[in-house]
């Protein structure tokens, strides 16, 4: 991962090599790609706009001919959510970075929100959106998109906020010095600087999002059952009808969708974002993508870039340019305002808490809390055991792969693909196996929780091992370190920051997955593993809002505590002691 890419040197950067005006083959290829994208988008949009009567209760037919359209609908939901997440990110993160008062509220809120089990949200949002658009499928669509949004937005906003706060001081000074307007400063300084982090987080969010789009398409809240056309609903129907062939088709369709997403979206964007990397040296192998190479070679793209530049310049002229940027002076009264602001926020929080107590007290007592906590501890035990198991398997495997560049180059994309693949599509197959061999659901449903999330451990460890300095490896070889000592003193400390990142993501994902993994069915057969996930799932199915709230609350507290008490200290230790740079 750290060698120079010879194919890149000598090539002129995009948009500056002078050539003729006639179109070439690359132009044609890009044109076809873009035309296809437009056609697909237009078709999907028409489907959503179909009159409401036809759509409510629109039956899902397990006909392979419908599958491409369902796959497309699922994908469109995904992209709608990512657009919403980006807008949210730009607004909220910018607000947090520019206003201290907003920052005081937004940062903790993001921290908590990303620990809340997303699927628990669905109960409320479905009802809300259905009320908002009565009799229309749009409400259910919004609820599904919102569910995906809530699984994506927080880490993106946080990444963008962090970038905005760490823009290099000298570049800020240059921008102030040449009196760049806020608009120009954003596009020339802040957005490019934040781009690599934001894009990486967006891509990670999208990879995680496939799981939720599948889970949120078919949902039952009390008496209301909604099945939006998509792969998730197809799967739900296949489970009801015990159609294993349809399940396999769904797996195949999902694999195709993820593969296309990986090749056409993920890799080109990561390769493109590399140019925004804030470093003054050119070493290191760059991420590559054939689609991006195609795009760069096409002349059409240069026209597009120029058009965009012209548009940007036009807007720039509309935005008033400040005569002189105000110089920030911090007065002592500011602290007083901060205190008042915190007091106001605390008051609102207290009121909200009071309302929650009022709401839950009608139907809950302390016994319910005890039960929920017990269930939470069961699920907690599952998460701990499974993450430990996954680590025991994938850390040595990841180290082995990461230390061999050829293996890393082959396995890394596969691991990223597997992390994006929604594991819940595979659940029915596992359930069939459990039913067939009469296995105990309390034990055998558990592995489903890490089915999709274990790959985060693998690909982070691979990345860490690939980045491990050669001189340290050579030194440890020269001193003939024994196996145990090598693991203890060389490689584990070396990959610890990467491992912690991966394990944290995997654990968070597993908590979320428990809501769909601890309850499973195959036709009339229902399998249930005792735990907080099944507790929330049952409450959702029964329309028991109070217990849903309780379950989500307990789960959020447990996730936040895990993060604070385990992962955060471990990560800090890794950053302080074991950073290699």
């Amino acid at each position, binding site marked *: 991962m750290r060698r120079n890419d010879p194919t890149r040197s000598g090539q*002129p950067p995009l948009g*500056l090599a002078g050539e003729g005006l006639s179109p070439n083959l690359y132009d044609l290829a890009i044109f076809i790609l873009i035309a296809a994208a437009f056609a697909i988008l237009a078709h999907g949009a028409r489907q959503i706009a179909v009159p409401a009567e036809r759509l409510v209760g629109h039956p899902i037919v397990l006909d392979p001919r419908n599958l491409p359209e369902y796959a497309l609908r699922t994908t469109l939901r995904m992209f709608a959510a990512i657009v919403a997440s980006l807008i949210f990110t730009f607004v909220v993160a910018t607000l947090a970075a520019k206003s201290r008062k907003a920052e005081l509220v937004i940062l903790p809120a993001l921290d908590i929100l990303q620990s809340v089990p997303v699927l628990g949200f669905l109960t409320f949002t479905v009802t809300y959106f259905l009320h908002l658009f009565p009799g229309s499928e749009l409400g259910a669509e919004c609820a599904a998109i919102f569910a995906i949004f809530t699984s994506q937005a927080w880490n993106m906003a946080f990444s963008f906020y962090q970038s905005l706060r760490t823009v290099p001081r000298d570049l800020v000074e240059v921008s102030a010095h*040449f009196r760049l307007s806020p608009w120009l400063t954003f596009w020339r300084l802040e957005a490019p600087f934040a781009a690599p982090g934001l894009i990486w987080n967006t891509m990670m969010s999208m990879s995680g999002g496939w799981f939720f789009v599948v889970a949120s398409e078919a949902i039952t809240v009390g008496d209301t059952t909604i099945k939006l056309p998509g792969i998730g609903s197809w799967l739900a129907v296949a489970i009801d009808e015990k159609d294993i062939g349809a399940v396999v088709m769904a797996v195949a369709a999902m694999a195709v969708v993820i593969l296309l997403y990986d090749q056409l979206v993920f890799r080109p964007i990561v390769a493109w974002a590399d140019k*925004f990397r804030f470093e*003054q040296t*050119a070493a290191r192998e760059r991420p590559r993508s054939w689609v991006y190479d195609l795009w760069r070679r096409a002349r059409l793209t240069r026209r597009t870039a120029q058009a965009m530049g012209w548009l940007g310049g036009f807007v720039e002229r509309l935005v008033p340019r400040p005569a002189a940027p105000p110089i920030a*002076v*911090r007065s002592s009264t500011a602290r007083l305002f901060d205190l008042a602001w915190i007091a106001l926020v605390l008051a609102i929080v207290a009121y909200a808490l009071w309302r929650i107590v009022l709401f839950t007290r009608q139907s809950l007592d302390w016994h319910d809390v005890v039960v929920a906590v017990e269930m939470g501890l069961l699920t907690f035990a599952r998460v701990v055991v499974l993450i430990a198991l996954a680590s025991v398997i994938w850390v040595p495997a990841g180290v082995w792969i990461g230390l061999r560049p050829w293996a890393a180059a082959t396995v890394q994309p596969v691991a990223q693909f597997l992390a994006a693949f929604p594991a819940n599509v595979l659940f029915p197959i596992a359930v069939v196996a459990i039913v067939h061999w009469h296995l105990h659901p309390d034990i055998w449903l558990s592995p489903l929780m890490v089915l999709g999330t274990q790959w985060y451990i693998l690909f982070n460890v691979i990345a860490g091992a690939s980045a491990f300095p050669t001189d340290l490896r050579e030194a440890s070889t020269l001193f003939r370190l024994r196996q145990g000592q090598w693991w203890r003193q060389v490689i584990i400390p070396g990959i610890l920051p990467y491992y912690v990142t991966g394990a944290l993501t995997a654990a968070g994902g597993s908590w979320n997955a428990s809501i769909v993994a601890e309850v499973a069915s195959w036709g009339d057969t229902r399998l249930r593993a005792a735990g907080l996930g099944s507790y929330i799932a049952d409450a959702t199915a029964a329309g028991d809002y109070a217990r849903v709230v309780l379950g989500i609350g307990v789960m959020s507290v447990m996730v936040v505590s895990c993060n604070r008490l385990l992962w955060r200290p471990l990560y800090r230790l890794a950053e302080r002691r074991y950073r290699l740079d």
Partner: protein
Amino acid sequence: MDTVLPSTTNDLLVADHVRKLYPKGSGEDLLVLEDVTLRLRTNEIVSLLGRSGSGKSSLLRIIAGLMPASSGSVSIAGRPVQGPAPEVAMVFQTFALFPWLTVLENVEIGLEAQRVPPAERHKRALAAIDLIGLDGYESAYPKELSGGMRQRVGLARALVVHPRLLLMDEAFSALDVLTAETLRTDLLDLWCEGRMPISSILLVTHNIEEAVLMSDRILVLASNPGRISSEIKVTLPQPRNRLDPAFRALVDDIYARMTARTAGKTVHGMFPGTGISLELRRVSPNLLAGLMEQVAAEPHHGKADLPALAGPLQMEIDDLFPVAETLQLLRFAEVAEGDIRLTDAGRRFVDLDPDGRKRLFSQHVLAYVPLAGHIKRVLDERGSHAAPASRFKDELEDHMPVLSAEQTLKTVTSWGRYGEIFAYDEDTGVFSLDNPA
């Protein structure tokens, strides 16, 4: 304070009684600039020469309109500065180029901000690139360029907006010796031939030779708080020769001025603060020993001329002065009039074996660095012989900015470890008396 500046139409820049205070962690504000008054006429190059902590960068940023003065006024071309003035362009020490923009786009950025139409912007940027010797690199990204070429981009970016006053913030200090010299010479050539659209240059530097080489006038800044201690006119004709005796004499003279002991101040007057809140510079025991050995050895025999010492060691004053002054603080040497002379203790130190050096060093640290003595006393008094570092850091922060407190504590930790006065555990952040076996 009642100096009245005779203002003439020739004055491009007038800074009048400028003061700058920074808020500290607690207590009083930190005074970084005290009553600085300076004038810049057209057609001159003026250097602000000072060491780190002399507030020279703060002064430059006040002039550039990037930072407000706490009191006093700055005006450029007769107009008071209330933000970045259009007549001014600045070259940054760190180059401060946008890594995602090409050379051409980087140069154009100032014009883009002024909303110059693209065609004209392009033409002017190419002209500036051409002038500064960057042709052929228009489409390169900064990371593909060497440090010297990057700073040329910074220079082109500043010149393209046609400023009247060019500010240079230690613009050559991040470059290697040869590259910096080439760039200085090229800049002087352009200046002498009148090919740059600027009428004056104000450059901030800590390099004495650079100041003598380039400027018509040198303003020497003294530290703590920053103030102009002397003004030197340089009348040597351009191009100047570093080996010219008159050039050398001027350099020696400035060294002497910058190390002159101010009457009425204590020996450690060069370090801000007193008692345990004495602010220490980050100088390692190895560096101290190294300089003592250098001064003791041939051809100096215990007494050396600082410029003569600095040259062969490739040290600039910002590297050399803190070491020399720390030796003075620890009574291993005396620094005055541009010379450094080892004390008896210093001579003895050089002759000792490693263990003896540690013992002597620890005696001097305990005797002359009140903070070290303070930490030792606290550890002795406590039954556990341990104390958290945060306790001392809080004490320091009452008297100095957070960053200085951190630096001071790190320095005293490193000295304490070398002298085996106390131990420090990085993981727990605790000082203790037990030495690990």
